[in-house]
Every structure is written in C-alpha cells, then in structure tokens.
C-alpha cells in the first residue's frame, strides 16, 4: 500500500476523520474540565496547607504527597475500576474526575506559591483596616495571586492535554482512542500514530504560542 492509500484508509475511508475530530474534542474537553476541577481542589488544598489548623494542614499534606507520589495511570485505574465500578457514568467524566484530582495536587502547590509571593504588607494593610483574615484573603491576596499564577495554570492545561492520553487505559474516546480504532481496522500502526502525534504537537504549539502572547501582554499592563 502506498502512503497515499494509507492516509486514505486512515482519514477518508468511511469518514474516519470524524473519529479524530471527536477524539481531539474529548481530549480538550477532559483537559479543560480537569484543570477547572483541579483549580477548585488546588485552591482549597492550598488554603488548607497554609492554615493554622493542624488537621486541615495534615489532610492537604497527605493528599498532595500521595497524588504526587503515585503514577497518574494507577490513579485513573483505581478511580475507574474501584471507585466508580458500581455506577454507570460517562467515561469522559471519569477522566475529568481522575485528572482533576491528579492536577489538583500540582495546582495546590502553584496556588500556594502564588499566595506566598504576595507581599505580607498587603495582608497587614487589609487587617489593619479591620478586614477579617478571610476577607483579606478573598479581596486582596487571592486576586493578585491568581493573576500571578495564570501562566502556570495555562501551562498545567497544556500538560494535561498530553497527560490525558492515558485515558486510553479505560476508554477509546480520546485522540489516542481514534488512532487505535483505525489501527484495528487497517492493521497499520505508523500512519494513525504519527498522525495523532502531529495533531497533539500542532494543538499544543498553538496553545503555547497563544499563552506566550497573553503573558507578554500581561507583563506590559503591569508596567502601566
């Protein structure tokens, strides 16, 4: 078979390109919602980690330690085969939950760094005006911290796009799944796999370039 025939079999025949489009869609969907869930968990864990309450501190410490100390794939398998075993739930949502919980541990450290990067004078100014600790955190420290960590969060999203490829262990809805479906019909490994490699690369390149632009613009607005 010539390369053209292989490409035809991979993408055009029976409109197989639709699988790649839908696969890429699921990959992006899972990554986006996982990073959002990770952000919620991450903020919560960062605040617990920084709190004076020893129990809250310990819980988030253990969470971050365990998640960072075990492979993502193992976490996904545990969540899919053990925790969600008794319930029927769309696989992409399982992916969002698994990658969200995973990402939460990394985002917690990003958020913690962001909060600690804000000058203590900001907190003192807030408290000296009579704001409570929570009000100071919400109105003064967090908005500044979030702005500072936005690039790191966008980067986490890009990392997740690549990480979500392991969802292939439990499902074939994503981009890797599309390649495997084609492969099982054409018995050709090279074209589908190299194709998704190119797709991943292009999508991530576009996002990184966009991110670079946003960062440059943010740096400029800081100088106003």
């Amino acid at each position: 078979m010539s390369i053209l025939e292989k490409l035809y079999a991979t993408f055009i025949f029976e409109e197989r390109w639709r699988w790649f489009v839908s696969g890429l869609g699921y990959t992006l969907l899972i990554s986006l919602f996982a990073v959002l869930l990770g952000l919620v968990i991450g903020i919560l864990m960062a605040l617990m980690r920084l709190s004076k309450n020893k129990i809250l501190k310990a819980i988030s410490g253990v969470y971050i330690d365990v998640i960072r100390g075990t492979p993502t794939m193992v976490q996904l398998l545990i969540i899919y085969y053990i925790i969600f075993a008794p319930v029927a739930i769309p696989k992409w949502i399982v992916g969002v939950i698994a990658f969200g919980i995973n990402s939460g541990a990394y985002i917690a450290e990003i958020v913690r760094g962001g909060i600690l990067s804000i000058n203590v004078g900001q907190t003192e100014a807030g408290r000296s005006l009579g704001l409570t600790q929570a009000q100071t955190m919400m109105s003064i420290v967090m908005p500044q911290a979030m702005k500072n960590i936005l690039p790191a969060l966008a980067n986490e999203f890009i990392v997740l796009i690549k990480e979500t490829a392991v969802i292939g262990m439990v499902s074939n809805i994503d981009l890797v799944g599309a390649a495997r479906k084609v492969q099982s019909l054409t018995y050709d490994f090279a074209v589908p796999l190299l194709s998704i490699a190119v797709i991943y690369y292009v999508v991530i390149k576009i996002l990184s370039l966009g991110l670079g632009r946003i960062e440059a613009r943010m740096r400029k607005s800081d100088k106003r």
Partner: protein
Amino acid sequence: MIKITGLKKSFGDLQVLKGIDQHIKKGEKVVVIGPSGSGKSTFLRCINLLEVPTEGEILIEGENITDPKTNVNKIREKMGMVFQQFNLFPHLSIMDNITLAPVKVKKMPKEQAEKRAKELLEMVGLGDKADAYPAQLSGGQQQRIAIARALAMDPDIMLFDEPTSALDPEMVGEVLQVMKNLADAGMTMVVVTHEMGFAREVASRVLFMDEGIVMEEGKPDELFSNPKNERTQSFLSKVL
C-alpha cells in the same frame, strides 16, 4: 485613650521591647524617634496587634486588646495605620482601595462610601486620581492615598510607621503636610519617624526609644534643645 502597661515583645530569643508603659490621651500627637533597631516600629505594630505582645497589657478606649477574647477586627476599625511601603492594593483602582474596607467591614452603601472617598481624596489633594491605579502614582501620591484609605474607616487613632522613609526627598513635604493638617484637625496620632522637623513642629510629646525601652520623653522643645539622657544626646547630635 491608649494605655500601655509592661509591654514586652520577643522574637524567639531576641527581646525587642523590654517593658514599655505609656498613656496616650485623646488628641495627643506622640512622635516616636530613635535609632533603627530600637523597637519603635514593633511598639507601634503592637498597638494594633500586627505584632502580638509577649507580655503586658494594652487598653484602647478601655478595652483590653491583649485579651484573647477581644474581637481584634473591631478594635482595628478604630485605628488607621499607614505603612512605610504604602501597601496600596495594586489590583484595585484608587477609589476601590479607599472604599473596600468601609463597604466590606462597615457595610456602608457603595454610593455613600464613594462620596466619602471623594471628600478624602480632595482633602489629600488628589481629587482627580479616583480612577487611577497605584502603579500610576508617585510615592508621595501613593502615601497620601494610603492616608485617605485609613481615614475612610473614620478611625479615632492614626498610627504612622515611618510614613516618609521610602519616599524621594522632594515628596516628603507633601505627605508631612497632610499629616500636619490631620494633627491640626485634632486627630490622635502616634508617629514613628526620622523627620525631626515634623516632630518638633507637630508633636505634643516626643518619645526617644532605644534598646527596647523609652529612654526619655518630653515636650519637643525640651527634648530637642535640652536632652537629659546621654543616649538621647548622642542620637540627636547625629541626626540634627
């Protein structure tokens, strides 16, 4: 108004305040001077509990703020604080910097808070800066905004922690002028500063601090022209 007895503060093994007794009356302008490391900033920060005293008692308008049961936030509402580094909120406009605390803490309606903020901005001579952001302003302007922000909570006492030390020399005057106006209006003030001219002109009482205690205190005329303590003499000879 402020009654301090046996105030001590240690950071680890380092004892910064070694026992301070002070009674600051309503309307008094107390200026604290002394070499760096003498504990004067720590003393000021203890008054609104930014530093928690290790020992001693501080009564503000009769309330013991060193009692753990006291609501610290309520006490702080009565005291405005101005910092060396201004500490304006860089992500908020000048207007929002000033209205944040009245709206969040006092639950003041936004319109009323903004009206008051405009008055305060006029008072510090920056009526046209409501929509600007802190980074767009000079140091002197930022510090005047910081004073307006503290005044927006309508405090009974104003604390100043070296308010002009981070400023370029040509901007010191404008900030001191605002403070002078405030003093003339009858505000109770505690000011830590290196501006001896200001101390001489505005203070009702000057405290000279060194090594964690008040070494000497008195009316500015007496203390500056006829210091009794040797340490005061040596300090003043260096700065005057």
